[in-house]
């Protein structure tokens, strides 16, 4: 049981090492290379907008075209997260809401 859990498939090795590699590259690039490079404001805006846009792109299809329960729960998560700034609280609210709404709809 635990041995099975500890086994790492070949494609997981590849994927995880590739992700670790590029992530380390981003860390080292700032440390060792970028001190002398000047970024234009445009490139800097692009870099700083990237993570937020990635997250939005990730959730948009589920929230916007997933159904009523998803849309309402998504809005609730946004509200809770905005007020509490707590990730666990927002997650619990979202999960509870979707559980309840699906039950009501079904």
């Amino acid at each position: 049981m635990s041995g099975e859990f500890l086994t790492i498939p070949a494609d997981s090795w590849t994927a995880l090492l590739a992700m670790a590699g590029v992530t380390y590259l981003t860390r080292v690039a700032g440390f060792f290379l970028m001190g002398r490079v000047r970024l234009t404001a445009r490139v800097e805006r692009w870099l700083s907008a990237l993570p937020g846009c990635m997250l939005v792109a990730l959730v948009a299809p589920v929230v916007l075209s997933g159904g009523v329960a998803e849309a309402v729960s998504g809005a609730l998560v946004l509200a809770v997260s905005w007020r509490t700034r707590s990730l666990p609280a927002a997650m619990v609210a979202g999960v509870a809401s979707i559980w309840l709404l699906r039950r009501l709809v079904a």
Partner: protein
Amino acid sequence: MRRTADEERRGNAPRGGNGPTGGNDPTGGNGPTGGTAPTRGAREWVLAGARDCVPVALSVFTYGLVYGLLAAQAGMGLGEIALASGLIFAGASQFVALDMWTHPLPVVALAAMALAVNLRLVLMGASVQPWVAQSAGSARSARFGALKAYGAAFLLADENWALTMGALQRGAAGKAGGPVDAMAYLAGSGGLLWLAWLSSGLAGSVLGAGVDPAAWGLDFAFTAVFLALATGLWRGRADLVPWVCAALLAVLGERFLPGKWYILLGGLGGSLAAALGPGPAGRASGKALGQAPGGASRGGGATGSDGSDRGGEGGHER
């Protein structure tokens, strides 16, 4: 010996750094106050970093429990979670990867996603770079110094970046008990974060085992986490157009593209809209990257308004 190295370090302070260093001018700390304040060794700065990081590490631990639970739900085993948290050590990208975690894994898409989500680390690394170069350059053996810097770079994350910038600022104001060894401080705080992140990921996966996700609405936990992370990244009106672009492109992409490419399509499209649109007012163009991007001069713990201190483990519960 250590003392000598520290004194040398002070001497090699990056005076003026990379042009306009704003509120973080390192010469401030190493000038008038440097001569009289007691000098601390690198080891003490490692410990100081770890100590200052304890509250942050606790919130990272909670966040890591959630990651472990969702990772187990996505079908990752303990070994895979250990590898991911131990080697990638970047929360946001690890969360996004879970959504793409279907065997055979889309390796290229995963790597491209990790690159895109973690590009912010380039900005953070660049903002501490003058101080790190200083501590690396002053080490007795240049090769050992470089090795240490590569190690400290591995531990760079949103949270300890913010803490380190804060410590450097206190140092510049003469309130840190001597010039701050940025590399040691970063390594100490980052080391503690690494332990918290790795252990909580494993604990979360064990605690969440045997739970049927869909029956409890846990399949929505992914979406909830990402939405919550996104609110932590919201910087104001300037984000509206890029985010709407990202959302629309993603919805279209999900309909017409195979796999998870809609994530990259939306992310790149939205961020390009941000780059091509009018910049925020008052923002100088062509800044040196060595200058702390935005949030740095506001001290530790403060969330940068500018995208440098964002995403990942840190947007919350600071």
